Protein backbone atom coordinates (compact mmCIF):
# COMPACT_ATOMS: atom_id res chain seq x y z
CA UNK A 1 0.00 0.00 0.00
CA UNK A 2 1.75 3.16 -1.20
CA UNK A 3 0.59 6.73 -1.00
CA UNK A 4 0.39 8.96 -4.04
CA UNK A 5 3.83 10.49 -4.75
CA UNK A 6 2.72 14.12 -4.23
CA UNK A 7 1.98 13.34 -0.60
CA UNK A 8 5.62 12.42 0.03
CA UNK A 9 6.60 15.67 -1.70
CA UNK A 10 4.34 17.62 0.69
CA UNK A 11 5.81 15.77 3.71
CA UNK A 12 9.42 16.49 2.71
CA UNK A 13 8.58 20.05 1.62
CA UNK A 14 6.96 20.94 4.97
CA UNK A 15 9.86 19.36 6.89
CA UNK A 16 12.28 21.50 4.89
CA UNK A 17 10.15 24.61 5.54
CA UNK A 18 10.18 23.98 9.32
CA UNK A 19 13.95 23.41 9.40
CA UNK A 20 14.59 26.44 7.17
CA UNK A 21 12.20 28.61 9.15
CA UNK A 22 14.18 28.03 12.32
CA UNK A 23 17.65 28.13 10.84
CA UNK A 24 17.79 31.01 8.35
CA UNK A 25 19.32 34.18 9.78
CA UNK A 26 16.70 36.92 9.95
CA UNK A 27 17.29 40.68 10.23
CA UNK A 28 16.80 42.42 13.57
CA UNK A 29 13.28 43.79 13.62
CA UNK A 30 12.27 45.93 16.59
CA UNK A 31 9.41 44.58 18.77
CA UNK A 32 9.12 41.36 16.72
CA UNK A 33 12.69 40.08 17.20
CA UNK A 34 12.81 36.29 16.68
CA UNK A 35 8.99 36.14 16.68
CA UNK A 36 9.18 37.49 13.12
CA UNK A 37 9.61 33.81 12.23
CA UNK A 38 5.91 33.45 13.05
CA UNK A 39 5.37 34.95 9.61
CA UNK A 40 6.14 31.46 8.23
CA UNK A 41 3.39 29.90 10.33
CA UNK A 42 0.66 32.39 11.22
CA UNK A 43 0.18 34.04 7.81
CA UNK A 44 0.05 30.78 5.78
CA UNK A 45 -2.81 29.65 8.08
CA UNK A 46 -5.01 32.40 6.59
CA UNK A 47 -3.82 31.79 3.03
CA UNK A 48 -4.59 28.09 3.40
CA UNK A 49 -7.96 28.82 4.98
CA UNK A 50 -8.86 31.08 2.05
CA UNK A 51 -7.89 28.41 -0.47
CA UNK A 52 -9.98 25.78 1.38
CA UNK A 53 -13.01 28.07 1.60
CA UNK A 54 -12.65 28.94 -2.09
CA UNK A 55 -12.60 25.22 -2.86
CA UNK A 56 -15.71 24.77 -0.71
CA UNK A 57 -17.43 27.60 -2.59
CA UNK A 58 -16.49 25.99 -5.90
CA UNK A 59 -18.05 22.66 -4.89
CA UNK A 60 -21.13 24.38 -3.44
CA UNK A 61 -21.78 26.17 -6.73
CA UNK A 62 -21.08 22.90 -8.55
CA UNK A 63 -23.66 21.19 -6.35
CA UNK A 64 -26.28 23.84 -7.12
CA UNK A 65 -25.68 23.27 -10.84
CA UNK A 66 -25.66 19.51 -10.56
CA UNK A 67 -27.19 18.08 -7.37
CA UNK A 68 -24.86 15.20 -6.58
CA UNK A 69 -24.35 14.35 -2.90
CA UNK A 70 -20.70 13.43 -3.55
CA UNK A 71 -20.08 17.06 -4.55
CA UNK A 72 -21.81 18.30 -1.38
CA UNK A 73 -19.52 16.02 0.61
CA UNK A 74 -16.47 17.61 -1.03
CA UNK A 75 -17.76 21.10 -0.23
CA UNK A 76 -18.29 20.14 3.41
CA UNK A 77 -14.83 18.58 3.71
CA UNK A 78 -12.98 21.54 2.18
CA UNK A 79 -14.86 23.90 4.51
CA UNK A 80 -14.06 21.74 7.56
CA UNK A 81 -10.31 21.82 6.86
CA UNK A 82 -10.55 25.54 6.09
CA UNK A 83 -12.13 26.21 9.48
CA UNK A 84 -9.41 24.11 11.14
CA UNK A 85 -6.71 26.34 9.65
CA UNK A 86 -8.72 29.48 10.47
CA UNK A 87 -8.91 28.51 14.15
CA UNK A 88 -5.15 27.88 14.12
CA UNK A 89 -4.72 31.35 12.62
CA UNK A 90 -6.78 32.95 15.39
CA UNK A 91 -4.96 31.10 18.17
CA UNK A 92 -1.46 31.77 16.80
CA UNK A 93 -2.41 35.41 16.20
CA UNK A 94 -3.58 35.82 19.80
CA UNK A 95 -0.35 34.36 21.18
CA UNK A 96 1.77 36.53 18.91
CA UNK A 97 -0.24 39.62 19.84
CA UNK A 98 0.33 39.01 23.56
CA UNK A 99 4.08 39.39 23.15
CA UNK A 100 4.17 42.15 20.54
CA UNK A 101 1.06 44.24 21.18
CA UNK A 102 0.76 43.34 24.87
CA UNK A 103 -2.66 41.72 24.80
CA UNK A 104 -4.20 38.37 23.87
CA UNK A 105 -7.22 40.06 22.36
CA UNK A 106 -8.31 43.63 21.71
CA UNK A 107 -11.64 44.82 20.43
CA UNK A 108 -10.00 47.85 18.83
CA UNK A 109 -8.21 45.62 16.33
CA UNK A 110 -10.51 45.21 13.31
CA UNK A 111 -8.74 42.35 11.56
CA UNK A 112 -8.70 40.25 14.72
CA UNK A 113 -12.40 40.70 15.43
CA UNK A 114 -13.58 40.44 11.85
CA UNK A 115 -11.67 37.20 11.29
CA UNK A 116 -13.27 35.80 14.46
CA UNK A 117 -16.63 36.87 13.03
CA UNK A 118 -15.78 35.09 9.77
CA UNK A 119 -15.03 31.89 11.72
CA UNK A 120 -18.41 32.16 13.44
CA UNK A 121 -20.16 32.46 10.08
CA UNK A 122 -18.51 29.19 9.07
CA UNK A 123 -19.39 27.54 12.37
CA UNK A 124 -22.98 28.44 11.49
CA UNK A 125 -22.54 26.46 8.24
CA UNK A 126 -21.95 23.28 10.25
CA UNK A 127 -24.72 24.07 12.73
CA UNK A 128 -27.06 24.57 9.77
CA UNK A 129 -26.05 21.20 8.31
CA UNK A 130 -27.06 19.41 11.50
CA UNK A 131 -30.56 20.89 11.27
CA UNK A 132 -31.68 18.66 8.37
CA UNK A 133 -32.40 14.95 8.27
CA UNK A 134 -33.04 14.88 4.55
CA UNK A 135 -29.59 14.78 2.84
CA UNK A 136 -30.78 16.48 -0.36
CA UNK A 137 -32.39 19.34 1.50
CA UNK A 138 -29.34 19.67 3.75
CA UNK A 139 -27.00 19.77 0.78
CA UNK A 140 -29.03 22.39 -1.07
CA UNK A 141 -29.52 24.79 1.87
CA UNK A 142 -25.88 24.35 2.95
CA UNK A 143 -24.67 25.10 -0.57
CA UNK A 144 -26.72 28.31 -0.72
CA UNK A 145 -25.50 29.34 2.74
CA UNK A 146 -21.89 28.65 1.74
CA UNK A 147 -22.16 31.02 -1.21
CA UNK A 148 -23.12 33.80 1.22
CA UNK A 149 -20.51 32.76 3.82
CA UNK A 150 -17.68 32.68 1.29
CA UNK A 151 -18.71 36.10 -0.04
CA UNK A 152 -18.17 37.71 3.37
CA UNK A 153 -14.58 36.44 3.73
CA UNK A 154 -12.81 38.86 1.34
CA UNK A 155 -14.64 41.78 2.96
CA UNK A 156 -14.03 40.69 6.55
CA UNK A 157 -10.39 39.70 6.12
CA UNK A 158 -9.03 42.01 3.46
CA UNK A 159 -11.21 44.93 2.38
CA UNK A 160 -12.60 46.32 5.66
CA UNK A 161 -9.40 45.92 7.75
CA UNK A 162 -7.49 47.85 5.12
CA UNK A 163 -9.75 50.89 5.57
CA UNK A 164 -9.34 51.10 9.35
CA UNK A 165 -6.41 52.07 11.58
CA UNK A 166 -4.80 49.02 13.15
CA UNK A 167 -1.58 47.64 14.55
CA UNK A 168 -1.83 44.65 12.26
CA UNK A 169 0.26 44.86 9.07
CA UNK A 170 -1.84 45.58 6.02
CA UNK A 171 -4.04 48.29 7.51
CA UNK A 172 -4.52 52.04 7.17
CA UNK A 173 -1.20 53.77 7.98
CA UNK A 174 0.48 50.41 8.38
CA UNK A 175 1.79 49.00 5.15
CA UNK A 176 1.07 45.47 4.08
CA UNK A 177 3.40 42.56 3.66
CA UNK A 178 4.89 43.74 0.38
CA UNK A 179 6.42 46.95 1.71
CA UNK A 180 7.71 46.04 5.16
CA UNK A 181 8.77 42.46 4.93
CA UNK A 182 12.50 41.83 4.66
CA UNK A 183 13.35 39.93 1.46
CA UNK A 184 15.14 37.20 3.45
CA UNK A 185 11.87 36.20 5.08
CA UNK A 186 10.27 35.53 1.72
CA UNK A 187 12.56 32.60 0.91
CA UNK A 188 10.74 30.63 3.60
CA UNK A 189 7.38 32.44 3.57
CA UNK A 190 6.31 31.57 0.03
CA UNK A 191 7.36 27.89 0.29
CA UNK A 192 5.53 27.76 3.65
CA UNK A 193 2.31 29.00 2.01
CA UNK A 194 2.63 26.35 -0.72
CA UNK A 195 3.49 23.66 1.84
CA UNK A 196 0.55 24.38 4.11
CA UNK A 197 -1.85 24.47 1.15
CA UNK A 198 -0.45 21.09 0.08
CA UNK A 199 -0.96 19.75 3.60
CA UNK A 200 -4.55 21.05 3.63
CA UNK A 201 -5.29 19.34 0.29
CA UNK A 202 -3.84 16.13 1.73
CA UNK A 203 -6.10 16.39 4.80
CA UNK A 204 -9.12 17.15 2.58
CA UNK A 205 -8.27 14.07 0.50
CA UNK A 206 -8.11 11.77 3.55
CA UNK A 207 -11.27 13.12 5.15
CA UNK A 208 -13.18 12.95 1.89
CA UNK A 209 -12.14 9.36 1.15
CA UNK A 210 -13.05 8.39 4.71
CA UNK A 211 -16.54 9.88 4.27
CA UNK A 212 -16.95 8.11 0.92
CA UNK A 213 -16.04 4.71 2.38
CA UNK A 214 -18.30 5.35 5.37
CA UNK A 215 -21.16 6.23 3.05
CA UNK A 216 -20.63 3.07 0.96
CA UNK A 217 -20.57 0.86 4.05
CA UNK A 218 -23.68 2.43 5.54
CA UNK A 219 -25.61 2.16 2.29
CA UNK A 220 -28.43 -0.41 2.51
CA UNK A 221 -27.55 -3.33 0.24
Amino acid at each position, binding site marked *: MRLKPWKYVVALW*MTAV*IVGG*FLIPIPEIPVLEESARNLFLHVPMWFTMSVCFALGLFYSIKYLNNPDLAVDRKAETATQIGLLFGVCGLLTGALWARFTWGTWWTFSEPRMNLSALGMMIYVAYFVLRTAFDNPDKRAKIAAVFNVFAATTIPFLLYIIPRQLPSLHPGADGNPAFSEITAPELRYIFYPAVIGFIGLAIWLID*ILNRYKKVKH*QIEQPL
Partner: protein
Amino acid sequence: MSFSLMQVQEDTVAAVDTLSKSYSSQWEASAGLEEAGPVMQAMASNDLIFIVLGVSLIIWLVLLFFIIRTDKKVGQLEKKLNNSNTD
Protein backbone atom coordinates in the same frame (compact mmCIF):
# COMPACT_ATOMS: atom_id res chain seq x y z
CA MET B 1 4.96 46.91 27.31
CA SER B 2 7.40 45.23 29.62
CA PHE B 3 6.85 41.60 30.40
CA SER B 4 9.29 39.98 32.71
CA LEU B 5 9.17 36.42 33.91
CA MET B 6 11.04 37.56 37.05
CA GLN B 7 8.07 39.65 38.20
CA VAL B 8 5.82 36.66 37.98
CA GLN B 9 8.28 34.66 39.99
CA GLU B 10 8.66 37.27 42.75
CA ASP B 11 4.98 37.08 43.57
CA THR B 12 5.04 33.36 44.21
CA VAL B 13 5.80 31.63 47.46
CA ALA B 14 8.39 29.33 45.91
CA ALA B 15 11.24 28.71 48.30
CA VAL B 16 13.85 28.70 45.55
CA ASP B 17 13.86 31.12 42.66
CA THR B 18 14.47 28.54 39.94
CA LEU B 19 14.51 31.11 37.17
CA SER B 20 17.68 32.84 38.35
CA LYS B 21 19.29 30.04 40.37
CA SER B 22 19.51 26.34 39.69
CA TYR B 23 17.19 24.25 41.76
CA SER B 24 19.84 21.64 42.23
CA SER B 25 23.47 21.41 41.21
CA GLN B 26 22.58 18.20 39.37
CA TRP B 27 20.32 20.22 37.06
CA GLU B 28 23.02 22.59 35.88
CA ALA B 29 22.60 21.09 32.46
CA SER B 30 24.66 23.55 30.48
CA ALA B 31 27.49 23.62 33.02
CA GLY B 32 29.44 20.64 31.75
CA LEU B 33 28.88 21.29 28.06
CA GLU B 34 32.48 22.37 27.48
CA GLU B 35 33.48 18.76 27.95
CA ALA B 36 30.51 17.35 26.01
CA GLY B 37 30.83 16.02 22.49
CA PRO B 38 30.76 18.34 19.48
CA VAL B 39 27.19 17.37 18.60
CA MET B 40 25.85 18.32 22.01
CA GLN B 41 27.85 21.54 21.98
CA ALA B 42 26.40 22.49 18.60
CA MET B 43 22.90 21.67 19.87
CA ALA B 44 23.37 24.00 22.83
CA SER B 45 24.66 26.93 20.77
CA ASN B 46 22.65 29.92 19.51
CA ASP B 47 20.59 30.36 22.69
CA LEU B 48 19.15 26.81 22.43
CA ILE B 49 17.12 27.58 19.28
CA PHE B 50 18.04 24.11 17.95
CA ILE B 51 16.23 22.56 20.88
CA VAL B 52 13.04 24.37 19.82
CA LEU B 53 13.64 23.17 16.27
CA GLY B 54 14.06 19.63 17.58
CA VAL B 55 10.86 19.77 19.60
CA SER B 56 8.96 21.19 16.61
CA LEU B 57 10.34 18.50 14.33
CA ILE B 58 9.37 15.74 16.77
CA ILE B 59 5.79 17.05 16.87
CA TRP B 60 5.63 17.50 13.10
CA LEU B 61 7.08 14.06 12.32
CA VAL B 62 4.76 12.32 14.80
CA LEU B 63 1.75 14.11 13.27
CA LEU B 64 3.03 13.28 9.79
CA PHE B 65 3.40 9.61 10.73
CA PHE B 66 -0.19 9.67 11.99
CA ILE B 67 -1.47 11.34 8.80
CA ILE B 68 0.32 8.79 6.59
CA ARG B 69 -0.99 5.90 8.69
CA THR B 70 -4.57 7.20 8.51
CA ASP B 71 -4.24 7.74 4.76
CA LYS B 72 -3.07 4.14 4.31
CA LYS B 73 -5.85 2.78 6.51
CA VAL B 74 -8.47 4.57 4.42
CA GLY B 75 -6.74 3.25 1.30
CA GLN B 76 -7.00 -0.32 2.59
CA LEU B 77 -10.70 0.16 3.35
CA GLU B 78 -11.25 1.48 -0.19
CA LYS B 79 -9.44 -1.55 -1.62
CA LYS B 80 -11.45 -3.98 0.51
CA LEU B 81 -14.69 -2.32 -0.50
CA ASN B 82 -13.82 -2.34 -4.21
CA ASN B 83 -12.90 -6.04 -4.04
CA SER B 84 -16.18 -6.98 -2.32
CA ASN B 85 -18.15 -4.94 -4.85
CA THR B 86 -16.61 -6.70 -7.86
CA ASP B 87 -17.13 -10.20 -6.39
